[in-house]
Every structure is written in C-alpha cells, then in structure tokens.
C-alpha cells in the first residue's frame, strides 16, 4: 500500500495515473482547483482503491500556502511515499506575446509553483531518506519554438531544476522522475485537431508513469518514440532551426 499525493489531480493524465496506482493498492491525498470535479474523482478513487481518499481544492498559484498544504497531506497519509506534480495550464502563445503579465502568469503556474512544491517535497523526502517525486514536464521544454515558447520555457526550467535536484538527491534514497509527454488527447489540448499517430491517450501516459516508478527511471519520454523525435530536433543547428515554422 503506497501513500500517494497528487497535485493537479483533475488533470486527465493525473486521473489516469491515479487509477493505475489504485489498482495496485494505494491511499490518496488529492489537490486540485475545481472542487466539484475533484470530489467526483476522489469518490471514484475511493471505490477503485477501497481506501478513503482526502481531497482539497486550492489555487496553487498561492505559493505561501504550499508548506501548510504538504503538512496536511503528510498528516492525512501518515507519510508520503509518492508525490505526483501534474498541475499546469497551456497558455495562449499569441496572447502571451502581447502581454508581459500573461507571460509571467504562465511561468508562475507552470514553473515557479512546481519548483516551490518540488523543493518542499524533496527536502521532506531527503529528511526521511526515501520518497518518489514525479513531475509532468513536456517535450515542449526541450527546445524553444515560436508556437509555444512561453509554455516551453516554463517546462524547460522545471526540467533543468529537476536534473539538479536528482543530482543532489542521488544516493539519498530519493527518486526524482521527469515525465515528458508528447501530444496527449486531453481537455487541456482540446483546441487542437487530434489526428495522426503522434497523439496518445492519457492512459498510455499513465502506464508509462507507473512503469517509470517501478523501474526507477530518471527522465522518460512518453510514448517512447518522442525520445528519438526530440533527439533529432535538438540536433538541428540554430541557424537553420530559427527559420523553421515549428
């Protein structure tokens, strides 16, 4: 039985992942923004896991509330074994370009709030000498592109931060996993035309996340072929890359 904290529990990837954890026996503490949806998910997970589920709705942009949040989760679960940080927004790139405020808000939600939570969780895990921290990053964080570089910059920042954290905690019993999904068919990406082989269902990502935990992986592209796509994209010289419409 694992004690699992999920932050951003109403995201499609988080919900699918929680169900897979529930099937293997788990107790959950859920945090999300939309209270009604969160309650429905909590009830569903209670039935699937056969264990009581605690949930609380919170705006994670309020960083000053993070320490108390984690304390409540620790209390309710009696120690966190696994923490999944899955909250985020997909900002409108064009709107951000015209608004510093929107750009910084997107970076606040997708990077700073994640870094705040990751720091607090990592320190708690380090003190206990064990724990698994999973963070949903994105392939968009591997290279800046004109179509979504605000989102990409936030995810890239998180990715670098986690590399450092992983390095720091290596050998201290703490596992830090960065998940980099490609295109996922979720409500967050509802505005896109979803056709073709590159789009994956949330459950496929969830399956990869659970496998990454079991196998002790560090950075995982999901589905797997994104590792190779991103490898190619990273190797395009900037002189050429800057002219591409990506």
């Amino acid at each position, binding site marked *: 039985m694992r004690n699992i904290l999920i932050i951003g529990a109403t995201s499609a990837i988080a919900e699918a992942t929680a169900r897979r954890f529930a099937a293997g026996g788990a107790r959950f503490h859920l945090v999300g923004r939309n209270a009604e949806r969160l309650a429905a998910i909590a009830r*569903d997970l209670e*039935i*699937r896991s056969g264990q009581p589920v605690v949930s609380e709705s919170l705006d994670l942009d309020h960083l000053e509330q993070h320490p108390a949040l984690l304390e409540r989760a620790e209390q309710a679960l009696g120690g966190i074994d696994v923490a999944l940080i899955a909250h985020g927004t997909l900002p409108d790139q064009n709107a951000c370009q015209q608004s510093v405020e929107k750009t910084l808000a997107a970076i606040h939600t997708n990077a700073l709030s994640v870094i705040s939570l990751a720091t607090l969780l990592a320190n708690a895990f380090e003190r206990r000498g064990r724990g698994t921290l999973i963070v949903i990053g994105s392939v968009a964080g591997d290279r800046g592109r004109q179509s979504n570089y605000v989102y990409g910059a936030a995810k890239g920042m998180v990715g670098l931060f986690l590399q450092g954290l992983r390095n720091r905690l290596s050998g201290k019993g703490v596992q830090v996993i960065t998940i980099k999904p490609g295109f996922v068919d979720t*409500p967050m990406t509802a505005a896109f035309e*979803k056709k073709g082989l590159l789009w994956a269902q949330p459950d496929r990502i969830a399956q990869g996340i659970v496998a990454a935990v079991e196998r002790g992986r560090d950075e995982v592209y999901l589905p797997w072929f994104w590792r190779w796509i991103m490898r190619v994209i990273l190797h395009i010289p900037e002189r050429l890359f800057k002219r591409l419409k990506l």
Partner: protein
Amino acid sequence: MSTTAPGSWGRYPPSRPRQILPCRDIQTLALPAEPQSCLPFGNGRSYGDVCLNDGGALLLTRGLDRFIAFDPATGILRAEAGVLLADILALIVPRGWFLSVTPGTQFVTLGGAIANDVHGKNHHLAGSFGCHTRAFELLRSDGERLTCTPERNADWFRATVGGLGLTGLITWVEIQLQRIANPWIVAENRRFANLDQFLALNADYEARYPYTVSWIDCAARGRALGRGIYMAGMHAPPGLMKPPPPERRALTVPFVPPVSLVNNLSVRWFNRLYYHLPRPARGLTPYQPFFYPLDNLLEWNRLYGRRGFFQYQCVIPPAAAREALREMLARIAASGQGSMLAVLKRFGDQTSGGLLSFPRPGFTLALDFPNLGARTFALLESLDEVTRQAGGAVYPAKDARMSGDSFRRYFPRWAEFSRFIDPRFSSSFWRRVMGN
C-alpha cells in the same frame, strides 16, 4: 476517448458528424449550436447507425467514466454512463459480484447498454439489462434532470431503456449486481445435427443452466440444416475453481484489408472446422472466454474489409419459430453468403418494459454478412420478409438497412415513444426509419 471521427462497429454506413463534443463531467452538458441535432456516442459497439448522427453533433460520453458508489454488501453499483462494462467487471469480480446481464462484449458503456437494452446468454432467466437497472439520471437539452426508476418518472424510464439515446443524455446509472463465488464458469458443449435437435436440447439445458447459447453452421444445407454447437454455463460453486490462468495478451487486427477476409470460401471452411473441432463436453473456464470470446481479438471488425459488414439479428415468436428459422437458414445457405458468427438463443418472457426494447419472447438468431452491396441488401430484405410474416422484430442496435415500414411493424409503440424524444436529439437511424 479519441476525438477522431467515430464510426460504428459494422463500418457501415460511412458517416461524418459535423461536430464532436467530448463530455467531461456530468454536471455540464455542452450542446452544439442551433439548429444542429446531437446524439450521445459511447464506445461505438453498436453495428449500424443507431450511434451515428450524420451531419449533426456527437456527444462523446467515454469521458464520463467515474464510479459514484458501490456497496459490496448489497451489490448495488452507481457509475457515470461512460464507464465500460469491462471496468465494472475489473472492480466487482474480485469482490464476489458479477453483472446481472452482460452482452457478448465487455467494451460497451453503461449508457449504451441501457439505450439498446442489451441482453445476454441468460435472457431466458434474467431478462434484459433494463430489468436490473435500478435508476438513472436523464439530462434533457433544456437542462432538466430526471431521476428515472421503474416507479419514479416511470414513463421516462420505459422510453429511455431501449430508447437509442434519443430521449436525452444518460449521466449516471445504478444497477443491481449478482453474487458469484469465484470468476469461473462451469461450461458444457454439445453438438447437434439439425434444428429439431437444437429445439429438443434447448428445453433440457435451459432448465439446468442460467447461460445458454448456440452457434449455428449456416453453410450447412439439407438434412444438416441448422446443425451447430450448444454451449451452456453457470457460475462455478464455492470451492470449484482453478489457479488463475496466465493473462492472455489481446491480439489486434492491425489494418483494414481492401476486401473482406470473410468470404464464401473462408466461411464454409471455418464453419466445417468449427463444427467438427473436438472440444471438452464439460469443463471449468474463466468467465472472459465464455462471455466475451471475441474481446481478445481487438478491432476484429476490420476483417470484413473497407466496405464493412452487416449484422442481422431478429427475434421470432415461439409458435412461428421452427418454420421461420428453417426458412431463413435455407435462404442464407442458398444465397452463398455465409456467416461465421451465427448465434441462436431463446428469449424468455421477462421484459424491461422499454417502449423500443428489442428482446421479447421467442427465438433470436444473429448473423453477420460482409457487405457485398446489392446482393447483401437483397438477402437481408428477404430475411426481413420472413421476420415480418412471422410477427418478429429486428434489433436496431445491429441494423443499418431495415425499411421504415419494417421498423414500425417491429416496434408498434414507436409513436408513443416519439413523444419522449428530446427536441435537440436525433440520429442517422431515426431519420432513416422515420423517412426524413
């Protein structure tokens, strides 16, 4: 939950919805802009056009997939309408419960099971899915929410059970489960040489087993007309079980071949082989292969090629059954258009009361035919002729071609039903059989 254009299981008729609206939670219903109509679309396992809305909008319900309540003491389960029966089984079987009625695939949604009032191998004993539905919520396009039970809003209950998704969106469903001792089935197989032998065996087996069904070799003619294999089963009693079998990995038909792989020759050889294949007379089997023999071959509908296929399932009242079934089997064998998955079973007297429910007392025969164009349409119409004369009915969930005239004869309460249709809801099927 994919948002690429959904189709029906028979891959016929081709259809293009103008808009696809995924549902995410049961609190909100996104409707398409006027004057477009909409139709709930579950997991796309109905064969013809009851799940299609050509030129209109589809409300994808697979996103409504949360459990709401489960009482392991009473076996009462409430869940959102997009939950698959497969998900329910994964939850309840380890806790000693089973679906009271299950169709031949576990990949259907709860909402779809009600909208088509599906039946299973235990119909002679347990009736249809609607008979074990305790309650559901119906969300109308004007925002009204109706909690329907056999007593409360009973008229809406009867219109929506078997109502083909036309009365509004089913948001959640509450069903009664049945107790089981373990996941195993005691199964019995017996060959029969013709239709009369089937009828004799059937009376005997129905008295002893809750689950009965027969496979028919419909390529056989003459004295062997109606030969097949009788399959009966019951949930294994406590103590009678084996260690869990290794999990079988499902295979997937990887692509759609340009022409159907199911054809005259393959059907004849398959049927002959299947009939003579040695099989244990009695044994213990896991529940999945017993109830869902095809669920381990994902996307099997692709085998029928680009033009798709038809299912034909009719029910014939008991008095006319013997003659009508003989006539149908003779017409099929003479046509040279064979079916691999011909299935015969008796429906019992218990009905859900659904105004458009298909199951009614009599013998039901289900067949599948690759779409060969006009030849196939002609054969199916000639089968309809027999069904009409015998006073039977054809199953809308499997239909893509019956005439409006046939439909109104098979479902005489259609006019009463049509008063309950939501003004914003419609389907390709309904427009077809209503002739507009």
